């Protein structure tokens, strides 16, 4: 077994992410991380299907979908394709024209909602995402720089499921972006190389560059940052537990009074006016 596969197997075991008999749904974007994750889970013998959200980002979505479908077809794996436009009334390109907020934040809301709903309705035990060491270290650095105590208390490779919220896991937590990219090249996994046009200039990318400069001078920085955090994260005060209720429109869980954020965005799209 390749080192990368061993690291993932150990991460799944250590954090009790899922059991061999549980059904896993992999959130597939067509990028290196999610395709590598799907490949590794399959090689490790897990029952893993994929879900691809067609975000409706001109050009980029078509190309990333092609990579996802080609990957699944070549391996005989089941891939569910969900068009955001069909669920929301507009793709991300259309949404950011009518709703306030940053593109990545709006897209994140839509993705979290739809991925959870697809996993829940499909009867999956767990939803796995391709977040790697660099992603998690950049998120952690961003949260520390703003002292986001609530986010720090919640940042963890396993988010437990409850009711209609499906458990979410990040099995690539201890693999660097470089290792994942190298795994794809060595394994012959073809992935979308270009960046999402809306992510250009994103804060997360700037944070990754800073961490890579530190890593270059002090090797092991990223891994030490995450490992140290996981040991001491209990010191951060979690926010008061929020009571979840069913959204009166779609029935999925929400902390909001009234419709959930996704349904409010959907309503906004249907009116076509800036929120």
């Amino acid at each position, binding site marked *: 077994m390749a080192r990368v596969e061993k690291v993932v197997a150990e991460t799944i075991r250590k954090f009790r992410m899922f059991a061999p008999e549980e059904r896993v749904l992999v959130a597939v974007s067509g*990028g*290196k*991380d999610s395709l590598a994750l799907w490949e590794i889970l399959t090689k490790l013998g897990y029952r893993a299907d994929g879900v691809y959200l067609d975000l409706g980002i001109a050009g980029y979505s078509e190309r990333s979908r092609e990579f996802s479908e080609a990957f699944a077809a070549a391996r005989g794996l089941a891939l569910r394709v969900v068009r955001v436009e069909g669920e929301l009334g507009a793709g991300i390109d259309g949404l950011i024209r009518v709703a306030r907020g940053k593109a*990545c934040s709006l*897209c994140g809301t839509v993705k979290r909602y739809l991925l959870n709903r697809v996993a829940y309705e499909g009867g999956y035990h767990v939803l796995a995402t391709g977040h790697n060491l*660099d*992603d998690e270290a*950049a998120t952690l650095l961003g949260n520390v720089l703003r002292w986001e105590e609530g986010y720090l208390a919640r940042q963890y490779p396993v988010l437990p499921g409850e009711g209609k919220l499906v458990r979410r896991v990040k099995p690539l937590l201890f693999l660097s*972006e*470089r290792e*994942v*990219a*190298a795994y794809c*090249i*060595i394994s*012959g996994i073809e992935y979308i*190389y270009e*960046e*999402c046009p*809306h*992510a250009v200039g*994103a804060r*997360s*990318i700037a944070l*990754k*560059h800073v961490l*890579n*400069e530190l*890593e*270059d001078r002090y090797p092991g920085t990223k891994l030490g940052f995450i490992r140290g955090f996981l040991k001491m994260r209990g010191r951060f005060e979690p926010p008061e537990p929020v009571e979840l209720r069913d959204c009166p429109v779609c029935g999925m869980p929400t902390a909001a009074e009234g419709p959930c954020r996704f349904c409010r965005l959907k309503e906004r799209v249907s009116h076509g006016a800036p929120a």
Partner: protein
Amino acid sequence: MATLKHRDKTYTVKPGATLERALRELGIIPETVLPVKEGKILPPDHRLEEDEEVELVDVISGG
């Protein structure tokens, strides 16, 4: 000369230098790219040869 291709940029470098040295001289942090030639990843101590073409695969993605 040897050629390093990084996204839409092409750099020409003198043969004989190691990949790591060539990258540092171009201001590229070795951690952020994978040097690939004919589908294989080259090590940092690989010495560039005359007319050699190497693709630098960016490893950072975000959003």
